[in-house]
């Protein structure tokens, strides 16, 4: 393998990992509070579609980004109303939210734009040109260099982070200590929703500059698995996203070599999933879920 092969692989790894990072860090925030949000796929979808639609209509990509954040917050709020206030089963709410948001986006897409893709927009460019793996746009730099460290520090060293962990582990004790459990969960779901939506917006606003149906293609579900893979910790989740992305980038490159070209395509495409599942099977057998995972809280 040439040097160019490895340089390309590293650059692609960062690009493929970026939407997974945004989404899995958003999901990590949700799950630390004890709420599983399976609305993640739909939230990414609404971020991708809503962000591009607003950017296209307004002519401003930054307004599109703000729109994606607002849609993500609203999606998180929807999940919060059902799971936190009403205490409804989190699996049902999450899957329902995904179905609703995906269908709503496709409905609006057809009403507004008919069949075919949206008008193309000028997407976010790379911060540095012709710099190999460093040629990435700001959303990649931001998620790796700012968001991940910030979330690690927030969860570990700030009052909010400690309250969030307390609420996710033992909401009764947190309540006794004066922490508003429901408010903390609302904040986690709304902020987490915004981050998930930004993961979707990355694909349309930074990667493609357009939208097509099915654009998220299961990345939300991968992000759910990555948080479990990372045992609800920031850096292991980041490592999982990078591992998945690196394997995906590798299989895309191996598939077009004469050596691996004869290997069944399905096997190569499954490689990143097999690696993550394999790693989970080896290191994840004694998972310790947040203490209040999936449990709605009601003051006795």
């Amino acid at each position, binding site marked *: 393998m040439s040097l*160019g*092969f490895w340089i390309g692989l590293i650059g692609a790894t960062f690009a493929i990992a970026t939407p997974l990072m945004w989404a899995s860090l958003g999901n990590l925030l949700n799950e630390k509070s004890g709420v599983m949000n399976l609305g993640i796929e739909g939230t990414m979808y609404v971020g991708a579609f809503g962000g591009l639609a607003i950017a296209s209509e307004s002519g401003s990509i930054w307004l599109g980004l703000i729109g994606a954040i607002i849609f993500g917050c609203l999606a998180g709020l929807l999940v919060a109303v059902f799971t936190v206030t009403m205490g409804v089963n989190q699996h049902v709410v999450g899957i329902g939210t995904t179905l609703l948001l995906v269908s709503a986006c496709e409905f609006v897409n*057809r009403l507004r734009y008919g*069949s*075919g893709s949206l008008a193309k927009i000028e997407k976010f460019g790379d911060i540095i040109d012709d710099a190999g793996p460093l040629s990435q746009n700001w959303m990649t730099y931001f998620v790796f260099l700012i968001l991940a460290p910030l979330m690690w520090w927030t969860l570990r060293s700030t009052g909010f982070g400690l309250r969030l962990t307390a609420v996710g582990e033992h909401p009764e004790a947190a309540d006794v200590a004066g922490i508003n459990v429901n408010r903390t969960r609302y904040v986690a779901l709304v902020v987490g929703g915004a981050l998930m939506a930004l993961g979707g917006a990355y694909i349309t606003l930074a990667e493609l500059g357009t939208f*097509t*149906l099915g*654009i998220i293609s299961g990345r939300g579900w991968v992000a759910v698995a990555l948080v479990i893979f990372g045992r609800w910790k920031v850096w292991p989740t980041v490592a999982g996203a990078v591992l998945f992305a690196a394997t995906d*980038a590798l299989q895309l490159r191996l598939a077009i070599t004469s050596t691996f070209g004869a290997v069944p395509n399905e096997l190569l495409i499954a490689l990143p999933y097999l690696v993550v599942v394999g790693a989970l099977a080896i290191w994840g057998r004694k998972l310790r879920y947040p203490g209040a995972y999936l449990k709605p809280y*009601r003051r006795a």
Partner: protein
Amino acid sequence: MDTRDDLAKPKYRARRGLFAALAAFLLVLSACGGNSGGSDAAEDTTGGDSSDDSGGADADLPLFYGVFATSLEEPWDGAIHAALSSAAEDGMIEYRHLDGLGTADAMERSLREIATEDKPAVIVGDAFAAEDAVRAVAADFPEIQFAFGSGGGPVAPNFSVFDNWMQDPGYLAGMLAGGTTESNTIGVVGAMPIPEVNRIINGFIEGVAETNPDATVLVSFINSFFDPATAQQAAQAQIDAGADVLFAERDGVIAAAAEAEIPAIGMMVDQSDQAPDFVATSLLWFMRPTIDHLIENVASDTVTSEDLAQFSFLVNGGSAIAPINTDLIDGDLIAKIAERQAEMESGSFETTVNEETPAGSTDVTG
């Protein structure tokens, strides 16, 4: 923490009731998978009540019903819908449609309802995801002409099949790519290794061999019809491996080509609007000859079981390549392609139909 007893209390029952009502509302909204519409105009793709939208249409016109497994936004079904819409716009048929019927049960239920309630002259659609269901309904309504995109053959008395046979435009696009590459490396990103995709890519590779016997064609499959982000990454991997011309069988590749400032070839419709400076041409599929043949059959009260493949061949006007971007492609090469195209149109040249899965890396001379 609530116990099960707590949750049985009136206040929780009220919340559950509210939830149930909201959930039902959300479910109804989100389950609106089958989008219906009726039109005698091409631009009406926005849904509506299929039984009423055709008001104003000439009652003497034969009713054609489009029944699609995917959304109309999917290019394959979109091409069929476009042809039916244009026939309606020309005043030749009354046209209604239903899309997003992704499962065999939804397809069968909808087909039976349409055949019973609307009694169309012809039902057109795609049967790939529900071959048995579609064929079972066709057998129960022998007076209705069924014409479906299918991997199988026709069935008497009323089930005809078609498919996109685009190996000829694939060949011409391959000639273009082979004559344009400077690195002798060309990339192709396809959906999945199925016969209708394979024969296009193999035709493309054959075309490359004519203009550049030293070339290597890299072929990636993303195993999805809708995943432009992965298609873009696959294209990027090919660019990293030296490809300097790309064939975008899937969406997402043109974005990668534009970023790398190299020529790309689009698919199904003219995609030059996606990157005017970098799209060299596109493969086009026209369903209109197939639809026109069905209209003729209806006019002569003929219900048949035919393989309609020939109507998608370039020689019959069923497929083509879009006008070539003269800013990107050399004039001599364009002339050479035009010469070959003329031979195809006259029937003196036929591209080999090869449905074998192409290798990830192919030296075109073997």
